[in-house]
């Protein structure tokens, strides 16, 4: 039986909140009760009761949703499946079943123990499979293994049929194939409550990861240097997306507003072969951004610092400096992925407010874009803003997957996430203006489609946005569904699936699939 937390319960205050402290937007928006479900049967029962009481259900696995989709549900029911968190082997050899409440950190650890396998999922330990997998799910192994939904072979989901009855169904390529495709990136929250993900096989976990980084101090940054770093970063992936030697690589360029300190370039090389694999490549790549000084010039404690911290010199004042070769750490893959993570599984206790935006880029940055980014990141108006520019593509860019998943972005080489974090509600307007201003400027250069200024509307340079980096500001564009689901047949298909499997549009939120009129 589900454990029910109603408004009189001492647990209610925390468990009716989202991980993003902006939600619920006010007390009036809170649900009437949270119900912790521990099995698929529980989900069916709880959902049916909610329907019979006339309440709107929303679903939560971790509460990491960026927008108001879950906890803004006035008088409704929040079905929390975070305790459905098992990761097990499946019926056939090499297959796995992951329940929606399983945290990614736990997924990596269990898959390692169960069979040395991995999902090419995200980097945050506490994000859970429920929203992450059903919305696409990508991470540092994307160039090597594609995205998580590329490996998904079946989904168990509780839907509500035309008669208003909750029922558990299994969707895969043979059974409910259209629903199955929709659940491979179209976000579960549109269709029902997912109770399990099935993977007939998964790729092997890398043995070791080579990690390296360079960082620059804004105090030593000039416009020219900034433009050079940003364009070099993008150009590399433009030229090397299809180069198999780069498939094991993940890079991210993280640019904070100039008041926040530094610009960082991080690199991960996932080794599946021997310890030497990729080491030359790593040096060559980092040389594009920084030339090391002769070893003879290294200060006496340089080698010791590298051994102690596994990275370049501390304290981080000025640009990082390397002597001889770039320092590289070799870490056991699973340890590097799982260690140092953790965090509470009780979402709502975090009081951090946040806002995110995203963009898929098919080409590197133009000089004009890099200049706009420089202007934005040195502006007082974007204080606190961070832009993470992840390498993407490689095995993700398999055009065949456009047709059997709900992730149509298969031509991009970079995936961008704009982020802003703050604590006080009083700063909402400033922070939201900052991130909006930067985003609008970035997609108002000649690279953007002039018909849709301010948006990375799909064209020869951009491929829209990522639904798991939900951004309700996109609703201001009449074309917001194209931004997320592309210009092809996908959105009409999602609408058709919605009509068939959620005929009452019971599973809805601000950015859910709009039923066909």
């Amino acid at each position, binding site marked *: 039986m589900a454990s029910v937390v*109603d*408004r*009189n319960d001492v647990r209610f205050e925390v468990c009716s909140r989202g991980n993003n402290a902006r939600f619920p937007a*006010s007390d*009036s*928006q*809170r*649900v*009437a*009760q949270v119900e912790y479900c521990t099995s698929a049967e529980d989900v069916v029962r709880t959902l049916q009761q909610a*329907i019979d*009481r*006339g*309440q*709107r259900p929303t679903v939560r696995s971790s509460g990491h949703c960026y927008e108001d989709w879950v906890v803004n*549900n*006035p*008088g*409704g029911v929040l079905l929390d499946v975070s305790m459905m968190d098992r990761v097990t082997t499946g019926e056939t050899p090499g297959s796995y079943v992951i329940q929606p409440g399983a945290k990614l950190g736990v997924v990596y650890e269990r898959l390692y123990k169960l069979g040395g396998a991995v999902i090419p999922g995200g980097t945050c330990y506490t994000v859970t499979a429920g929203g992450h997998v059903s919305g696409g799910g990508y991470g540092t192994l994307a160039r090597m293994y594609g995205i998580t939904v590329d490996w998904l072979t079946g989904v168990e989901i509780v839907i*509500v049929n035309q*008669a*208003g009855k909750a029922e558990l169904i299994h969707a895969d390529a043979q059974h409910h194939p259209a629903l199955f495709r929709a659940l491979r990136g179209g976000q579960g929250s549109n269709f029902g409550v997912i109770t399990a993900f099935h993977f007939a096989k998964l790729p092997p976990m890398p043995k070791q990861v080579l990690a390296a980084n360079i960082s620059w101090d804004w105090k030593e940054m000039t416009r020219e240097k900034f433009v050079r770093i940003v364009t070099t970063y993008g150009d590399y992936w433009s030229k090397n997306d299809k180069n198999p030697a780069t498939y094991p690589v993940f890079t991210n360029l993280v640019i904070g507003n100039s008041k926040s300190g530094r610009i960082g370039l991080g690199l991960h090389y996932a080794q599946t072969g021997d310890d030497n694999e990729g080491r030359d490549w790593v040096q060559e790549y980092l040389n594009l951004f920084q030339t090391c000084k002769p070893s003879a010039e290294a200060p006496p404690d340089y080698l010791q610092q590298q051994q102690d911290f596994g990275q370049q010199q501390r304290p981080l004042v000025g640009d990082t400096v390397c002597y001889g070769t770039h320092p590289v750490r070799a870490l056991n893959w699973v340890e590097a992925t799982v260690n140092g993570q953790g965090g509470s599984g009780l979402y709502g206790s975090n009081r951090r407010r946040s806002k995110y935006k995203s963009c898929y880029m098919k080409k590197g940055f133009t000089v004009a874009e890099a200049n706009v980014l420089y202007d934005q990141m040195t502006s007082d108006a974007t204080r606190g803003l961070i832009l993470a520019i992840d390498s993407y593509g490689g095995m993700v860019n398999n055009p065949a997957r456009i047709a059997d998943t709900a992730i149509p972005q298969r031509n991009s080489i970079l995936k961008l996430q704009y982020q802003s974090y703050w604590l006080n509600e009083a700063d909402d307007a400033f922070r939201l203006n900052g991130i909006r201003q930067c985003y609008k400027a970035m997609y108002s250069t000649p690279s953007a489609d002039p018909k849709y200024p301010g948006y990375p509307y799909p064209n020869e340079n951009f491929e829209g946005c990522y639904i798991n980096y939900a951004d309700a500001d996109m*609703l*201001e564009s009449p074309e*917001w569904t194209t931004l997320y689901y592309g210009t092809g047949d996908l959105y009409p298909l999602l609408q058709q699936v919605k009509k068939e499997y959620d005929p*009452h*549009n*019971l599973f*809805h*939120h*601000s950015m859910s699939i*709009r039923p066909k009129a």
Partner: protein
Amino acid sequence: MMMQEYKPTRRAVLQGIAGAAICAAPMTRAFAAIGDGITFELDREGGWIHSIVRGERRHSEKADLPSAMVYASDHQVLHVTHGYTSYLGLPAGAISSYRVEPNGHLQRLTTQGLSLTAMSPHHIAISPDGRSLAVAAAGGRVLNMLSITEENAVGEVIAVHRKLRGGIPQEFLFDRDGALCVDSHRYAMLEGRLARIGG
């Protein structure tokens, strides 16, 4: 469909005086809420709210898709729903509150979105204590309960009730105890939700 002039029935007039709801007949050009000697007409097709003071049209306020109204005579505030299918990019209708001046002038206090899926609202009622409003929206077969703010304007949606099957409530009212009477059932706010009470 034929357009017809709204003629307030005796029941509707009484409701208007009590500050409760008057239901919109489909495709009716104008209908009225009566209170304090002022009658309001909604021109649903033209998008106007007219104030008629002692038989004369004194003020006309442009309003998007006005679909239903209720007058809170205690506070001289008129609440009007907008029959949108989309409001600020969301699949929802909206509701506006207007302060009514003695000369019939309307001053808009606020406009507030209804809940998701509460599209094309068609009926509205105000509770006897004047602290809550109920709105029915045919679009999503949804009932919304909204708060009334200290300024006597409409506040946020505080509960949503949705029947997946059966008819859409056309007309409802609050009874003397503050329960919302919809068809043959009574509803009240209970532990944060709009719950069916009684038998």
